[in-house]
């Protein structure tokens, strides 16, 4: 009789496990739809599809996937807030120190090339090596308002126009 009870318990456990696993997928998708429902309407379909796929590709089991979704569920208002924000136009440099990059890109500020820069001209090209120093004479900003290029005057009086800021960053 004891053995029979054990067999029945095992059988029941296997059935419950199969039932739980079968329910996992729809529950996960329902939760994802709940999270997406809190987003602005125009973003819901996109994030639903994106998160369905992400969730499917999580390599571990249903508990890991559930935790992944719960993390989203708890922070759904942050996602919604980020999506509701108007598109921002520029990187606003906050309270920078004197060592900060804001002063790196000011007119008449000294600047050093942190990488070799090749200026292509109509018939030739000229290279300015790493460590070349100069003074900023003009600052160019991109469509987003951030500094993208600068004009530089070298110590010999030569001007280098529209150098991408990438060449001055570490």
């Amino acid at each position: 009789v004891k053995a029979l009870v054990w067999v029945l318990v095992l059988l029941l456990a296997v059935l419950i496990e199969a039932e739980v696993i079968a329910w996992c997928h729809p529950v996960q998708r329902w939760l994802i739809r709940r999270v997406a429902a809190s987003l602005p309407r125009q973003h819901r379909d996109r994030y639903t599809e994106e998160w369905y796929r992400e969730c499917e590709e999580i390599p571990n089991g249903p508990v890991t996937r559930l935790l992944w979704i719960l993390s989203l569920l708890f922070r759904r208002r942050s996602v919604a807030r980020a999506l509701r924000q108007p598109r921002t136009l520029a990187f606003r440099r906050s309270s920078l120190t004197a060592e900060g990059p804001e002063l790196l890109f000011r007119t008449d500020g000294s600047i050093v090339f942190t990488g070799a820069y090749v200026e292509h001209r109509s018939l030739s090209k000229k290279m300015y090596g790493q460590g070349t120093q100069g003074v900023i004479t003009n600052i160019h900003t991109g469509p987003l308002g951030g500094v993208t290029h600068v004009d530089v005057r070298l110590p010999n009086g030569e001007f280098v126009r529209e150098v991408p800021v990438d060449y001055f960053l570490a």
Partner: protein
Amino acid sequence: MEGLRLTTPLLKLLHVLLADPTANYWGFEIMKATGLASGTVYPLLARLEGMGWLESGWDDEQDISGPRRRYYRLTGDGVASARIALAEANSKKRLATSTGRLRPAFGGNHR
């Protein structure tokens, strides 16, 4: 850029994205690389995409039915801005290290 604070999760995210600025990353890959939870990564991705630092698109090349994977990539302005942000964070860290911190004097009265 209203409201974007240089938090540790943001800096981790930018660091990962800048490791290969031309590469496409998808959400779970970013989570693995940064060690951040989904509830932290997605608000940041949404914020950065809204600011024009990131662009995203569907992976339509995969021959798999069902939901598609969404890829994220830094834009040209995003690369420059992310580098500036990391430089700013580093300069703040250096400044904090060099000035040290004020600590309360324990032990009370000096006689």
